[in-house]
Every structure is written in C-alpha cells, then in structure tokens.
C-alpha cells in the first residue's frame, strides 16, 4: 500500500444543517502540489480547513501520514505542527512583522537563534525584509499577504496550505511568490495544497488539480487533463472551454465520428456510439481564422461572419456566427494582419483532435 500523506474518506461538512461539502475522497501525496479550483462558494476554503485540521468534519475521516486525525486532539496538534496555512483573508497579529513571523517557531519552542535566522530567511523569500520592525497592522493589503506567506514558510512545514495566496498581489509580486513556492517545492519537497481561482496559476504550479463545485469534487487530474479533457460541462465552462456545442453522433468511421450540431456537422475523435447525445468542447485558442478556405489537414472548416470582437490583454476574442456561435482567440498581431472586423467574412478551422467529446447529462 503506497500511503498518501493526507487522505480523506467521505468527509463532509455542514453549516446550519446544510451540507456544503459532501463525501469528498481525496489523496494528497507526499511532495506533490495540489490545486483546488472552483467558483466562489464552491467549498474550497471549507475543504482546506478540514485538511489543515482547523475544523472537524461533520462526517467521514481524515488521515494524516497514516494516522486517523479526525478527532484526536493531541494527534491533531502534532499533525498541525507539521503543516501551516495561509488563510484567504490573512490577518496579522497586532505586533511587529518579526514577531508575527516568529510566532509559529516560538510555539514550537525553537531556540531564539534559530528563530532569528529562520524569520530573516522567510522575510527575504517574501521580499518583506525591510519591513521587519513595522507593526504588521500598518501594512498594505499585498504586504500583509506576503507577511502571512513568510509566517507560514518560517515553520518549514511538511505541508503548506494556501488559500488564494496571491489574490491581493500585483503581477510582479505574484511571480515572485510563485518563484518562492516553486523553490520550496523543488528544494524542500514540501507538499503544497492550494485553493485558487487563478487557473493559470494552478496550471503553472500544480502537479494535480481538483475541480470543486457545489461542495463536490467533479474531476481531479493533471493540469493538462483538466484543461484539455474536462469530463463535465461545468468543468469545461469553468476552465475556459468557451465553445460547448450540444449534438448527436450521427456517423462513425473507426475513431472518427461525425456530430450533428443543429444541422452542422463536426468531425471529432471519440469512442461513443452512433446516437449518443454529446457535448463537443472546443477551446477558442484551437480555432484558426483565415480569410480564405485553405487546404489544411484540419477536418473542420466553417464559413461565417464575425459577430463581435473584443481585446483581452495581448489577445483578441472573436465571435464568429457560422450557423452556431464559435469563439476564437487570436493574437492582436494576427487580428491586425487579417484586418478582422465585425461583419467580415472568415473561415474558422479546427482539427478533429481539437474537439473533445463528453456525454451529455452525466
């Protein structure tokens, strides 16, 4: 039996008589980075609080390093001393930044010299060294978040829990913190469990992602899996598969199937039989736009008119009406090169392999 570092068996939590987390079975392996993603109110924070042993589940059990820590107080404290947690809304104690970061170490009865050294190191990692003597209550939002991260790092946890760790940080601070995390993940083999709504952060840092919605884990898998082959419509929507088309499989030739989307035929790769009602998922960045129909190997080409164009950072999102609405993403540069404009006629092309098929109503 290979043992997960943290294992939950059917845990649930309820508030005011209502289950807001139901039957979660999750293994967190030693050394992995696990990201929980999901919309507001999905239960991310609740689940992290159960895993960090801050709360006792209403049902089910939690195992840490092979021990049942569901409700044994002293085991829980022992286990908790091997973890630390950066809360979603970080609070600092009304004392200096130094003392804030030193707290966890003091509680573990470390020597003053060790404490001094570890606090300095943690503050340097979080780029907060110059604030060491400030009262932590006077810090700005982002500074507070970085102190909270330093405080959690200082105790050199085996498991680090992070709840939206960079929500209050600008892109530069975010990448610094991500570097620090990458570093401790690589160097110290720290297990990391994070909740984030920033999916690209999940993608960048995580080994495995769990998608949670309405208190249930809908899918876990590698970032690649989650992003390219979501198993449910909700997951697909959430991870940015903007094209979700409902249809029926009307033909198949080995693995190549033809799907009827309200009269338009799309080709894709799938195991489902003829007659199956499915969703066809296509990531907008997998769709190419061209002024002419060209002879590419792509199986699917549709002619249409541009319905809407809107820029997003370095990219442009283009909505094409081609019997059904298709959303494509192109770079600003290509948009300029193709001189895309509303009402312009274009050809939207995508490969059969870029279409991911899932069964409907599952």
């Amino acid at each position: 039996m290979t043992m997960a570092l943290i294992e939950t068996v059917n845990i649930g939590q309820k508030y005011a008589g209502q289950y807001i987390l139901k039957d979660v079975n999750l293994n967190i392996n030693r050394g992995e980075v696990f990201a929980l993603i999901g919309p507001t109110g999905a239960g991310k924070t609740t689940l992290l609080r159960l895993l960090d042993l801050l709360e006792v589940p209403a049902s089910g059990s939690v195992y840490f390093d092979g021990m049942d820590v569901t409700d044994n107080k002293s085991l829980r404290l022992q286990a908790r001393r091997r973890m630390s947690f950066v809360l979603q809304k970080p609070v600092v104690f009304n004392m200096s930044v130094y003392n804030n970061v030193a707290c966890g170490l003091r509680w573990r009865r470390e020597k003053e010299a060790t404490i001094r050294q570890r606090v300095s190191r943690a503050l340097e990692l979080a780029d907060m060294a110059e604030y060491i003597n400030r009262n932590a209550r006077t810090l700005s939002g982002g500074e507070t978040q970085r102190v909270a991260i330093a405080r959690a790092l200082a105790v050199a946890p085996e498991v680090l829990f992070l709840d939206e760790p960079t929500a209050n940080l600008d892109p530069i601070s975010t990448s610094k913190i991500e570097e620090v995390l990458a570093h401790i993940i690589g160097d110290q083999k720290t297990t990391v469990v994070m909740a984030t709504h920033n999916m690209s952060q999940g993608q960048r840092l995580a080994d495995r992602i769990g998608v949670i919605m309405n208190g249930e884990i809908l899918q876990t898998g590698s970032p690649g899996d989650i992003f390219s082959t979501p198993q449910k419509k909700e997951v697909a929507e959430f991870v940015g598969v903007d094209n979700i088309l409902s249809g029926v499989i009307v033909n198949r030739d080995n693995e190549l199937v033809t799907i009827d989307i309200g009269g338009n035929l799309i080709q894709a790769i799938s195991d489902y039989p003829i007659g199956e009602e499915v969703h066809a998922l296509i990531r907008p960045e997998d769709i190419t736009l061209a002024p002419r129909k060209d002879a590419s190997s792509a199986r699917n080409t549709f002619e249409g008119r541009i319905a809407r164009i809107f820029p997003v950072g370095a990219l442009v999102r283009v909505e094409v009406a081609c019997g059904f609405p298709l959303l494509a993403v192109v770079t600003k540069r290509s948009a300029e090169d193709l001189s895309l404009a509303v009402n312009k006629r274009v050809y939207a092309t995508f490969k059969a392999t870029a279409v991911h098929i899932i069964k409907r109503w599952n």
Partner: protein
Amino acid sequence: MTELWEGLVTAVKLIISLDPEVMEIAGRSLAISATSSTIAALICLPLGAVIHSNKFPGKRTLINIVQTLFSLPTVAVGLFVFVLFSRAGPIGGLDIMFTPVAMVIGQVILISPIMLGLTISALSGVDKAIADTAISLGASGLQTAVITLREARFAVLAGLIMGFGRAISEVGLSLMVGGNIAGFTRTITTAISLETSKGDLELALALGIILIVIALVINLVLNRVQQR
C-alpha cells in the same frame, strides 16, 4: 462644599506627612485587593479563554449567570463567607474569620465573576481569524488562548482593572468578614465607613481621595506593563 476642599487638603497633608496610620491601612488595602485580584485573574483569564473558545450546550446560560453575578452585593458575599467560616459553620475550624485571609477569599468570590465575564466579552471582540491563524501555525490550546488574550489586551486589562477596583473599593464584605479591626483588618474603605459613622466627613473624604490615588497609581503601572 468646604468639606470637599478640607477633605482634599487633609488628604494631601496625610499623603505628604506619610501619616503612619494612614500608610498602614493603605498598604493593607492594597495588599489585600492586589492578592485577591491576582488570584482571581489567574483563575479567570484561562477559564475565560476556555469558555470563549469552546462551544458547548448551556454556554449562553453560563455567561448569563456569570453576568448576573456582576450584581453580587458585597454584604451578601460577606454573609456567605461568614456563614461558611464562622465557628458554627461547616469549615469553622480553620479559624480564619476576621483575618485578611477571609477578606481575600471573599473578594475572590466577589470579583471572579467580574473578571471572568469581562474576559469573555473582551475575547468576543477578537476576530475569529486570529485564533484560526494561531491554530494553523501550530499553536496549542493554551498558546492560542494567550495570543487571543494578547489581541484583546486593552479590553482584558479593563476587566482586570474593574475587578481590582471592585475589590479595593468594596466595604460590606470587609466589614463583615474582616471586622475592621484596627491594626489588623482595617482597610481604607472600612476606615472611611467608620469615620463616616463617627461624623468625621473630612477625614472620610480624605481617605476616599487617597484610595483613588492608589487606584490611579496601580492603573498607570498596569497600563505601562500592557503597553510593553
């Protein structure tokens, strides 16, 4: 009105001249109430933290009872202690009636609900996230209590000062179980009551002023400590 002025003058004179009798009863007042406040604080701070941080059935009722005991009349506590420790009482053998020990016991009973209730209400103002953060950083129950009390230190201190104030200013209890014995259990408040019943209002007022001066000093010291 002249009495007020004369009381003030007398107070200043007594303080400046370090009148030995006044110094003695002032010292005793301070010693007795400081002792009972310390004992009560040692009981109530941890107990308050435990009650605050645990959920249990009847918690609300318990707090109601504690707050009800804010209204304990000193003389009732005095009677209670008297009945308990008097010769005919269940633990009369200890022979502590009319000694400072009995006064300390009575004061601890009197002020414990106050310190306990105010500790709990001070803690109620602390963001729950503080305790969560401490726990998540590996604090034990006791360590969590300490940091939470520390976050509420201003209000916690106010509670302690209130308890001390109640102890040093009470008189019914001290009279009842101390007996106002000159040179042994006479405190500032029992002396005030005696001087009042004698009709020496100036001296009574002067003693009152001295009491407040003592309280002020204690207060400043505690605040200094808290601010460190």
